[in-house]
């Protein structure tokens, strides 16, 4: 109970920090080297473009200062303007174009070198390798490792160690999605039949929100994810826990919940390692109790939400692939007990 309350407090704090101007979902609040590069580039473009805009607007306004109320018909047209005047204007126009070209060259070089610094190091950045697969409408996260016993699969919540470059291999199971965590890096598409790669690094511990950025159908709006950046030791502990199979149900209610899970429709799509449930159509639930959010970062993982979600997920995410479940209240409560115990 206390733990639940803690989670809720944590979420509230996050929500606040999300809506404040810094924000955990904001391209201008960079917390990693990738996003920092991008934000520097952004400010260069922003300032130069603003200056250009202001200058052109002033020129435009100055060109309008000679006003008349006479109808245009009454003014004689000027087909042969004085040569000297035209020559002066030509010089001004040509110099403006020259300046434009120079600015564009600066932009081009700045943009190229920023891009290089972001992709060139890709080959050397292999602190951690995560395979991210986009599904309609959730994220499958698989932590790769040379040691097969360290490989595990989770969903929608990606824990990463602070200060370590993480390489993502991006795949898609159905349609094109796009992985984007603005505080950490730019986006990359997840494309069926292709593998795309991106690396990112979080320099500060915290939670960063991301959301699918390529329209992927019905619930594109509710396909978010969290990146939880934590110190190395904490990450190692989390990882250690995730590689374990699920906990054995302790209480009677939890035991009954497990039976409900294994004998109802749940088992047709979800896996819980350590039980006969092994389907991989929906998110892996082996450690679902340890996640902060459910439904692709749509709902806070509380008891109520979980129960409502299982009963009728369509009210939160209409069109999602999970059917309604007509469980009796007692069954539902036991199931929630069981799922919450899967830390």
């Amino acid at each position: 109970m206390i733990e639940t309350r803690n989670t809720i407090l944590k979420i509230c704090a996050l929500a606040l920090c999300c809506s404040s101007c810094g924000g955990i979902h904001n391209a201008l609040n960079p917390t990693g080297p990738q996003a920092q590069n991008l934000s520097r580039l952004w400010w260069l473009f922003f300032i130069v473009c603003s200056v250009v805009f202001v200058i052109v607007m002033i020129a435009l306004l100055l060109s309008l200062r000679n006003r008349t109320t006479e109808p245009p018909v009454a003014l004689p047209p000027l087909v042969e303007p004085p040569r000297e005047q035209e020559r002066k204007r030509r010089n001004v126009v040509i110099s403006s174009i020259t300046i434009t070209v120079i600015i564009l060259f600066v932009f081009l070089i700045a943009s190229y070198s920023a891009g290089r610094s972001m992709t060139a190091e890709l080959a050397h950045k292999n602190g951690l390798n995560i395979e991210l697969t986009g599904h309609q409408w959730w994220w499958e996260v698989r932590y790769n490792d040379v040691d097969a016993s360290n490989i595990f699969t989770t969903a929608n919540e990606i824990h990463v160690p602070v200060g370590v470059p993480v390489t993502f291999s991006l795949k898609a199971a159905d349609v094109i999605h796009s992985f984007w965590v603005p505080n950490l890096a730019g986006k990359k598409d997840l494309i069926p039949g292709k593998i795309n790669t991106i690396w990112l690094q979080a320099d500060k511990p915290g939670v960063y929100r991301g959301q699918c950025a390529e329209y992927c159908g019905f619930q594109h709006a509710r396909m978010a994810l969290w990146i939880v950046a934590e110190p190395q030791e904490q990450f190692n502990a989390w990882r250690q826990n995730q590689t374990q199979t699920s906990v054995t149900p302790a209480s009677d209610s939890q035991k009954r919940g497990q039976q409900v899970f294994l004998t109802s429709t749940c088992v047709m799509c979800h896996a819980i390692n350590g039980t006969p449930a092994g389907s991989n159509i929906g998110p892996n639930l082996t450690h679902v109790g340890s996640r902060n959010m459910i439904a692709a970062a749509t709902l806070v993982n509380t008891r109520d939400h979980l129960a409502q979600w299982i009963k009728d997920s369509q009210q939160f995410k209409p069109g999602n692939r999970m059917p309604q479940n007509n469980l009796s209240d007692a069954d539902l409560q036991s199931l929630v007990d069981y799922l919450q115990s899967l830390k």
Partner: protein
Amino acid sequence: MSHEEAQKAQKAVRIEIDRDELEATMRREKEELERTWARPTGLLGWFTDTDHKAIAKRYIVTAFIFFIFGGIEAALMRIQLMRPDNHFLSPDKYNQIFTVHGTTMMFLFAVPIMTALGIYLVPLMVGARDVAFPRVNLFGYFVYLIGGILLYTSFILNTGPDAGWFAYVPLSGPAFSPGKRVDVWAQMITFTEISALAGAIVVIGTAFKMRAPGMTLNRIPLFVWAQVVTSFMIIFAMPSVMLASGFLASDRLIDTHFFNPAEGGDAILYQHLFWFFGHPEVYIIFIPALGFISPIIVAFSRRKIFGYVAMVLSLISTAFIGFGLWVHHMFATPIPQMGQSLFTAASMIIAIPSGVQIFCWIATLWGSKLNIKTPLLFVLGFFAIFILGGLTGVMLASVPLDLQIHDTFFVVAHLHYVLIGGSVFPLFGGFYYWFPKWTGRMLSEWAGRLNFWLMFIGFNLVFFPMHKLGLNGMPRRVYTYLPETGWGTLNLVASIGAFILATGVLVFIINVIWARYAGAVAGDNPWGADSLEWATTSPPPNYNFHNLPVVQGRYPIWQATADAPVVRGLSTTKRETLVTSVMDAQPELRFEIPGPSIWPVLVSLSAAVMFIAGIFTPWAILIGAILAGIALTCWFFGDPNYENKTARETGERSEPAMPAPELRPKEV
């Protein structure tokens, strides 16, 4: 007394003598022209009328109705996004609405209305009696109309497409979009492609071969240049989207696997094909609008355009570069950095011709005595909005920056700044500028100003906050968002702006309806402008000009001398016009333009059978092809006589072509 003076005196005497007879001749000729160019009436007449002005007006009205539909869809979306977790629209409705909004605005509003202004004004500006292929023109309109009706019928029946206006595979493929929704989209694209191609051919034919004598290549009005450049872009861009939508349709209907990675197809191929069309499409919408701006600025600043040659070259180079930057829509796909950089460079280079034009316009305005009326006001609004949109375009051209702002509300802001700022504002300026020519009446100046300010303020309120929303992480095409994201306030501002913008459009509609019946009578040339469309009555007669003019400079009306010659010798009892050479507009032959015909509409109906029934059964393609074949055969059969030999063959060259200085309509 020199020889010349003597000649002049003699000429004056001759005119004095001929005047009565001349007047009678003129009257007779006008009556004959009136009869020859009479438009068919009644219901059947509506389907057979080939008058370019009538077709253009229909295009404009139809496209504007689609614009209103698209606007209503936009308003619905803004209501839905007004606050987080809103339940005004279901995700299914929202997805259909944003897809139909984009499709409508791009394919059913922007492209056709730009073509429409060209179809109306190009023949008048180059001094021709009609367009080059009036029946193709009519065919184009009906194909477009049927395509639009198809989309909206399916939308009203709740089977509107829902995969976005660029319908990426695999989402739009058979596996993830079952049903007929995307098929409707793909076939609607086919309709508009054909219609746009028909319009492009008509414009190029008219501008290259039917110019008044004297209108050499370097005297063509910038409006016409813009239309020609756009038409060439249509001819090169449309085949690409035809492949994309054709492959998509065949993947869906007859189980080909062009885009199915599981069977060796490629999902990215679709994006390349689509954007190879899709990016030039933006310029297809934008370049005609540049053509509206130049004549308005010239007319109001009362001087020649600064840097005519630079302007023309800018238009042409925009068109060329426009084909080299489609990949900047795909920077998030796995394409190597070096390859992407090429497209970054191209995307930035295209800012140069746009810059050249903007600097030249400012140089034209500079120091001129200006009476800022509504048309010019809209052009000034264009400057403010489009330049901002252009600068965010430079940001999107940079690969790394694009990776942050691609597919977010920043892009939504950018594209509306360039398309509404770059096209819709000049278009409204154009409406105010040419409305007198189309109807003979002026739009209200007072309402025009109100219209402008409501649209300008409303527009900026809607779209400026979206830049910030995008940077704050709001992706495009989301039907709702969580309250915790903090996107609520800016979205509310945008929604309020949308209603101000809509009020502006409403003022325009009222203004048009009012002016149609009660507006001040305009006269032939209310703005004192320079180009040939103002040399005839408002609205122009069915045959456009009594005598086709002879052009003496880049600004035909301003540079016309008192004894400006006109073209004589065209038949008044046949629908004849003058065909001239491409480069120097030297008269080549008299050509009889085809008149009203029922076949274009029947061909378009057979095409409709082919494409619409083709959604349900492949046999429809066969049946439609046979029907179209029959209709086309008939179309080519009963044509007017093409007995007109070229002038060169019959030795008549000098007779019809030679301007006859003694017959000056102005003196009559």
